[in-house]
């Protein structure tokens, strides 16, 4: 698939901008950085439209691109020693919808519980990767284990979390889909 049409590009932008910003924000914890990352993905998609061939669904392509650009940005910020996780806590947060708050709080609780139920080493490795944004190499050094073990533990954590949260996640995905198409 190639996206050479201006109208299609703008329609994709309108549909996916906000969900992608939320995804980027969950990684970068900074509103400006999150919006900048998503805009860069769409700029690139447009600039490279004649050379970019998309072989997966557009949703997968966009999420993967945002994921990649956000992780690269985190690495840059680490190098610059400017990454301050506290920024997220200082940002104003809007809670207009009671149900949204309830669903998200419930999800956070479920996730916290699911993480707590992971085997100790698995949880430790996963938390360093997800919350401290540490690389395999950094985690391996920190815990004196091999990078291969780090990868195994992260894969195990993802699998266990998915299994433990499966039922609840389907409800949440449905909830976000409904929000996305404006039925809520």
């Amino acid at each position: 698939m190639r996206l050479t049409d201006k109208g299609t590009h703008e329609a994709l932008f309108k549909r996916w901008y906000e969900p992608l910003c939320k995804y980027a924000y969950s990684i970068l914890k900074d509103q400006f950085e999150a919006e900048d990352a998503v805009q860069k993905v769409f700029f690139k998609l447009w600039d490279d439209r004649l050379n970019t061939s998309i072989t997966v669904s557009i949703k997968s392509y966009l999420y993967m691109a945002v994921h990649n650009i956000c992780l690269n940005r985190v690495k840059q910020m680490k190098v610059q020693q400017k990454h301050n996780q506290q920024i997220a806590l200082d940002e104003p947060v809007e809670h207009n919808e009671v149900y949204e708050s309830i669903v998200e709080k419930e999800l956070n609780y479920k996730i916290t519980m699911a993480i707590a139920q992971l085997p100790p080493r698995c949880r430790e490795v996963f938390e360093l990767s997800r919350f401290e944004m540490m690389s395999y190499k950094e985690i391996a050094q920190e815990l004196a284990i091999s990078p291969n073990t780090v990868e195994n533990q992260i894969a195990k954590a993802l699998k266990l979390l998915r299994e433990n949260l499966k039922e609840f996640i389907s409800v949440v995905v449905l909830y976000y889909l409904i929000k996305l198409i404006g039925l809520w």
Partner: protein
Amino acid sequence: MVTNDTDRLLARYFAGELSPQDRIRLEKWLAESQEHEEYFFELTSIYQNMGTGEYPPFDVQKAIEIIEEHINKTSLKTLSHKRKPLAWIIGAAAAVAILFFIFNRKQDNPITTITEKGLYSFADSTRINLIEGEVSFSKNGTRDTIYLKGKASFEMNSEKAESKIVKAGNIYVKDIGTKFTVEANTPDSVYVSVTEGEVLFYSDSNTGINLKMSQSGYYLSKNNKFYKETMRGNFQFKGTTLSEVINQLNTFYGQQIELKDKSVQDLPITVTFTKEDLSTILDVVAITLNLKVDHIGDGYTIE
């Protein structure tokens, strides 16, 4: 099906440890089925909600204005760069992207550096479409060396191309009159895809591989090895004769498929292939038409 290998691949994706080859594998896996995509987004949703459950308000309208301004600006700029648009688009459409990182730029004394995106044509018929980053040119006496940092596509004239080499660290792509593309997201790997003609893909310590039209391959620095990637094509045959099927397959895969028994060349076949390798396609064709396929050397015979 989700395997342990896939779980590890997904772990690398979420941990930001994906190599260019992993990325290709992940995209292939995602494109295989709806089930895979759903699995991927379940994990994505967990990953996202682990990061935060609270979001600031995002100004969608302002963002739309920014993207529209960018589209309008770049549309005008692209028009100004189009010299032979149709020919270039045909070339570029079959190409992926070229990404080169420069490591030893100083040794050849670059003459000039271009940083503005766009299509550039040169007196020796070389054309470069710079998509991002920068490209530099130098001469070391007997051959031209082109350095690219970022992303671009190349097209070189067959009469002049033997003197052209694109260099990325100790990795070389020597053009033998062609349009070719390379992707190297990290300094430890280089991905090459050939649109037309042929390239020699090699390093200082490895004679490398030849890649012909429609072929692609990659280099991994950790073991200093070059790999040819299995090509997968899409074909729709509707009452197509066997000789025409072979013709199309030979053109796409750049391999020699020989039909030994000419009496079957007009047999029609109706079948659709999506992202299939040549071996699988030939097996299906052979079974359908009750023929036999033999793999000899680099080619195939059908009888």
